[in-house]
């Protein structure tokens, strides 16, 4: 009898221990994704850069060399510019990176994603973008004064058809 009690008791303990193991690691230990006093700065965009070159009329000699059904008057190269992004936080450089257009012919949109935890509190965020190789300096720019709570997410997007740099 004592032996039986021991066996059933032992089994009960075994299953309880397993359940406790499962229950514990199901939610614990917590994962500290960001330090408690940090906010998150994200850059995420997907935008085609400007075309690298304008269309240009073809000369008669060039046209003569082409097969008749392909004889278009204008030559329009489709290569796009890379998108250069520069982010300054409180006057300090945080990111300075160039994102290449997609596609073998470099004729697709450029896309980028970066994340950077920053301390919560007051910040001055300045974002500059260049999406054309034909322009020196930057083509778009935005500046925002931010007051960030811990865990708050700031998203930097680049939407050329909606005014350029968007800070949300």
């Amino acid at each position: 009898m004592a032996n039986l009690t021991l066996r059933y008791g032992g089994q009960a303990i075994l299953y309880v221990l397993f359940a406790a193991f499962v229950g514990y690691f199901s939610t614990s230990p917590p994962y500290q994704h960001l330090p408690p006093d940090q906010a998150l700065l994200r850059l995420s965009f997907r935008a085609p850069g400007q075309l690298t070159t304008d269309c240009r009329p073809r000369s008669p000699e060039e046209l003569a060399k082409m097969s008749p059904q392909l004889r278009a008057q204008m030559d329009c190269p489709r290569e796009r510019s890379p998108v250069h992004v520069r982010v300054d936080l409180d006057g300090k450089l945080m990111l300075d990176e160039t994102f290449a257009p997609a596609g073998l012919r470099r004729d697709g949109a450029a896309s980028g994603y970066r994340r950077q935890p920053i301390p919560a509190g007051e910040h001055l965020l300045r974002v500059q973008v260049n999406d054309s190789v034909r322009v020196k300096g930057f083509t778009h720019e935005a500046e925002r004064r931010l007051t960030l709570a811990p865990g708050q997410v700031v998203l930097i997007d680049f939407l050329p058809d909606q005014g350029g740099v968007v800070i949300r």
Partner: protein
Amino acid sequence: MPAPTGSAGAPAALWRAAESALDRLCGVDDNPLRQLGAIGFYLFWLIAVTGGYLYIFYETSVAGAHASVEALTHGQWWAGGVMRSLHRYASDAFIAVIVLHLVRELMLGRFRGFRWYSWVSGVPTLWLAVAAGVVGYWMVWDDLALFVATATTEWFGALPGFGAALVRNFIAEGAVSDRLFSLVAFLHIGLPLVLLLVMWMHVQRLTRPQTGTTRRVALTGLAALVALSLVAPAVSGPPADLTRIATSLPIDWFYLAPLPALYTASPEAVWVASVGATLLLVVAPWLGRTPRPRPAVVEPAHCNGCRRCFDDCPYAAIAMAAHPSGKGEIAVVDADRCASCGICAGSCPSAVPFRSTATLASGIDLPHFTVDMLRAAIDATLRPAGTAGTTLVFACGHGAAPTPQPGLAIFTLPCAGLLPPTFVEYGLRLGATGVVVVTCAPGDCEYRFGLRWTLERLEGTRPPRLRRSVDRSRLAVIQAGPGSRAALDRDIEAFRARLAARATGSAAGGTSRPTLGETTHG
């Protein structure tokens, strides 16, 4: 005869020690460590049933998802809440159990050679199970779900084909759509269905796979999970808010452990580690090049198509086909599935040593360990003069090895199941005082059914049967695992002492004691 080698080594001994310890608590039959695969199937069904209940109340929309889960959790805590918690905890237990199952087969060395198929087909279950669980966490659409969604898309975004734009689906207001929730729900049902298909494929090369647990394990396990669900119900965090990210997250380490590594290391590192580990698992059966013994061979002239080997093969390696003679059927061996255990040789009705042919030709045989070799070895032991008093020992090469003693003739077999029962009678008729059959420990048969078939054949409940007329008191069947040599030696000694006492006692009219299947050692 070449002596087969057992699966020794420290990892195997360690695992066996753990199993024996639990045997003492749960008994061999109800020891969860001995039925981990079956528990995997059981938990899968439990997850499916509880998930089905949750799905009735789940709303597949951005606005409705979180609220519908909250209503289920708190509005009907006694049903939906318990179901949700059971769904969660059974899923966690599922991962724990299949990882333990993998560790068991690894530590016991059961992943090489003919087992490659079982092993390799097990690997994708890990990915599918984790993927299904991760998607499950999106469904709740709380702060944890948002983290899971962004982290997994960040992870996939690191792959060349996907690109950095993937994560945009989860970080901009308005990007998360109801359509996306339909996709997530579809994946959360579809992935487990694929998992079930792979689980089914996983047991295709096993005869009678144990896909159900014993009743006690099922009920005690369920009771433990229900208790856990009541004590610590699964709950949601605050609804997902794309402008905020939780700094501290109560993550489920069974499913989400790789995600923190994306940030402590990098997405690329997690890809390398996970794909690398998977590839290592997949090629593991072929690392270390242990030569595979030759598969069983069928002799058409002696195969009468009785199907016994077909029934007894633990690895579905035998099929029946039309006999080349045009009459009846013949057994056909699939060499890649064959474990070379010899259980088929032990089942063959042609393996009768009394036949007076010069060579004993059987219907199915191991080329490197034929029943003819076994008969020749017995003949060589018992036919010379002065061998009276010899005790024959047929020992499973994977169980305990008996210590050689004067008067003991030990034959080590690849599996006790290779022994045709007629060989017991043959040995006794040739003058052996007794026969000992040593099998592996209960619940630990290297070839799944070797132990069970051996016992049933010797008890006369499964063909080929040991004839009723054979004196059972001169036969001892001892179940002894690799770690119990000393106990085995003691049992053999005791058996021989009984035989000796009987020899003197029977002259004085003593009684005999049956010994069949009485002794077991872990």
